[in-house]
């Protein structure tokens, strides 16, 4: 459809917006953008600003109403927060980046939930499809065309289920922080923080600063893993400083940190009233007889972050296994994926924090400009080389952190057969073990077909890691705390969680009417992924 890029589709009858919301920015310019950035967190903002300052036309699509992504999520203007920095490290650096972004002339498309990216169809132009609105419900479908793509889609939290994890009051650790940062609310007054990873310390200190009592931070790993890699540790002083700040905040709030321990059960009927914390052995198997009950009215739990890669894997982008068992995009030295024309930055290429994200974003912005403007020398500039060195240093530190917090293979021993693993479809661990045992399923996809685990609204984002572990165990392990079959031989090599299937042709639920409304492109009907580079 030459000459009419990025126009909104005419909404069909049943999908009229049900309520007014700030509608999308005008779809200008009428020519395709040089670069479409997906995600307005630190990586996306840095990439967009950099590319724009190097002369490219850039659009940034993001699901949220405000820039900042998850890390710099902050209250809406209506809440009138005079000191948002009280909930953030490095707030002034973010506002500086945001200031550059707002002054840059980049087109910001908030409330755009991208559900698929289609590769160029001989014309060298990518198409980004989005649903609009605060929750993509009833909003106008939109599409944005661009010569290149920068994926900065971030990550979501990994969950490892335990009895009671579906009770109200049990929430993601990152979720508790997100609700606090954006809505200035807490889920309770006495909140246990549990799981694994450096995020837990940040969450606990935020919750405590906001007035919650945090009776314990429960970390499944030790912190010894860091000490084994002193070289990489020395390279990450900023991270250490951050940890020290959180640590001292926790001390001030008299919050004990329990390492090598896990919440192995949440108690309550209609909401959480207490948790059981058990000691873990080195494989994360609960040690019998060590359970101790802690009263609380909320539990914030999470086991690290999972890179959000489905838009890229749908295009056939290569992935790599991270040291903590997730899948991230495999990127070259200049942040380009294995699919030419598609770059990525930030957590999409592996969890590493905001400083790494903005570094990668800036480097990607330079690389895109170098490609489109035919100026390869840009990528050999002093600035680009310094960014690459910084990226490598921060990435090395991130890998040490990921390895230190990688889930052990024994965790499934705390998961009894009657616990729901798939929250959406209410599929129990026993059903999944049955599919993996008697029925021979060995991967999350087969389990899904047999049990519906991962088939619900969230498309396996919450249960994927757990389902993959149970499938890999082949149905062994009764999960009665005896550890039978949950040993090292039952998990995968290196004691890490096997990857879940991150194949989601549609990254967000899309009404069939919105698909039917898609204009035909070059004789092809609309998505999903039948593009030439898709391998599945």
């Amino acid at each position, binding site marked *: 459809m030459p000459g009419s890029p990025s126009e909104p589709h005419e909404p069909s009858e049943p999908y009229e917006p049900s309520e007014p919301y700030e509608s999308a920015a005008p779809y200008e310019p009428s020519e395709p953008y040089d670069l479409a950035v997906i995600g307005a967190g630190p990586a996306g903002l840095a990439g967009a600003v950099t590319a724009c300052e190097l002369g490219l036309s850039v659009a940034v699509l993001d699901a949220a*109403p405000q820039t900042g992504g998850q890390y710099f999520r902050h209250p809406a203007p209506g809440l009138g927060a005079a*000191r948002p920095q009280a909930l953030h490290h490095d707030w002034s650096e973010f506002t500086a980046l945001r200031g550059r972004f707002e002054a840059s002339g980049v087109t910001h498309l908030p409330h755009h939930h991208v559900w698929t990216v289609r590769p160029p169809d001989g014309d060298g132009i990518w198409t980004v499809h989005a649903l609009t609105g*605060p929750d993509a419900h*009833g909003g106008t479908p939109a599409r944005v065309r661009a010569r290149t793509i920068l994926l900065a889609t971030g990550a979501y*939290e990994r969950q490892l289920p335990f009895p009671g994890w579906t009770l109200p009051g049990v929430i*993601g650790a990152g979720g508790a922080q997100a609700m606090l940062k954006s*809505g200035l609310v807490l889920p309770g007054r006495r909140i246990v923080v549990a799981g694994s990873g450096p995020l837990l310390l940040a969450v606990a200190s935020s919750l405590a600063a906001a007035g919650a009592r945090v009776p314990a931070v429960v970390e499944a790993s030790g912190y010894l893993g860091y000490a084994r890699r002193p070289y990489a540790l020395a390279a990450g002083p900023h991270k250490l400083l951050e940890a020290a700040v959180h640590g001292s905040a926790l001390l001030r709030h008299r919050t004990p940190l329990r390492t090598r321990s896990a919440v192995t059960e949440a108690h309550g009927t209609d*909401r959480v009233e207490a948790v059981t914390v058990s000691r873990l052995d080195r494989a994360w198997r609960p040690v019998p007889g060590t359970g101790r009950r802690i009263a609380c009215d909320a539990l914030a739990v999470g086991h690290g972050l999972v890179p959000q890669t489905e838009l890229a894997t749908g295009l056939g982008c290569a992935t790599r296994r991270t040291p903590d068992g997730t899948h991230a995009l495999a990127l070259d030295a200049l942040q380009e994926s294995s699919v030419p024309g598609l770059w990525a930055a930030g957590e999409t290429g592996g969890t590493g924090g905001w400083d790494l994200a903005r570094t990668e974003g800036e480097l990607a912005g330079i690389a895109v400009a170098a490609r489109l403007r035919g100026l390869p020398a840009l990528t050999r500039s002093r600035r680009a080389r310094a960014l690459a060195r910084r990226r490598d240093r921060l990435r090395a530190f991130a890998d040490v952190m990921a390895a230190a917090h990688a889930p052990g293979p024994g965790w499934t021993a705390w998961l009894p057969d009657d616990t729901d693993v798939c929250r959406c479809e*209410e599929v129990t661990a026993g059903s999944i073990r049955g599919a993996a045992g008697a029925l021979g399923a060995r991967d999350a996809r087969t389990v899904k077909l047999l049990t519906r685990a991962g088939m619900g609204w969230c498309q396996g984002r919450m249960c994927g890691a757990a389902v993959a572990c149970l499938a890999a165990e082949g149905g062994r392990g009764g999960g009665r705390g005896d550890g039978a079959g949950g040993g090292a031989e039952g998990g995968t090599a290196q004691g890490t969680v096997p990857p879940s299937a991150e194949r989601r042709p549609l990254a967000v639920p899309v009404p069939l009417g919105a698909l039917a409304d898609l204009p035909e492109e070059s004789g092809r009907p609309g998505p999903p992924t039948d593009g030439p580079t898709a391998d599945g």
Partner: protein
Amino acid sequence: MARDRNPADLVGADPGPPFEITFDGSAVTALPGQSVAAALWGAGILAWRTTRNGGRPRGAFCGIGQCYDCLATVNGEPNRRACLVPARPGDTVTTQEGHGHAGLAV
């Protein structure tokens, strides 16, 4: 350390005038800029959906729009992600029961 601290004081919030929404018929006070989920949490409400098989209560879980556990019926429309939908004066929020497929009719 005082225990009467709260998130609004921490960030020096000076919000616009509060307004009312209802949840299952009861009044709930919301602040401008809060999501439906945040307004409900602010009122001590953690569950606003029941699952279709077990009838179990659910509310916000991931807090960032990924898990779809916080689906609520807002102004008669099911399957709204309460953690993303901004609260607006007069909103009627009701517990979403069962499959919520009414909104999926094509």
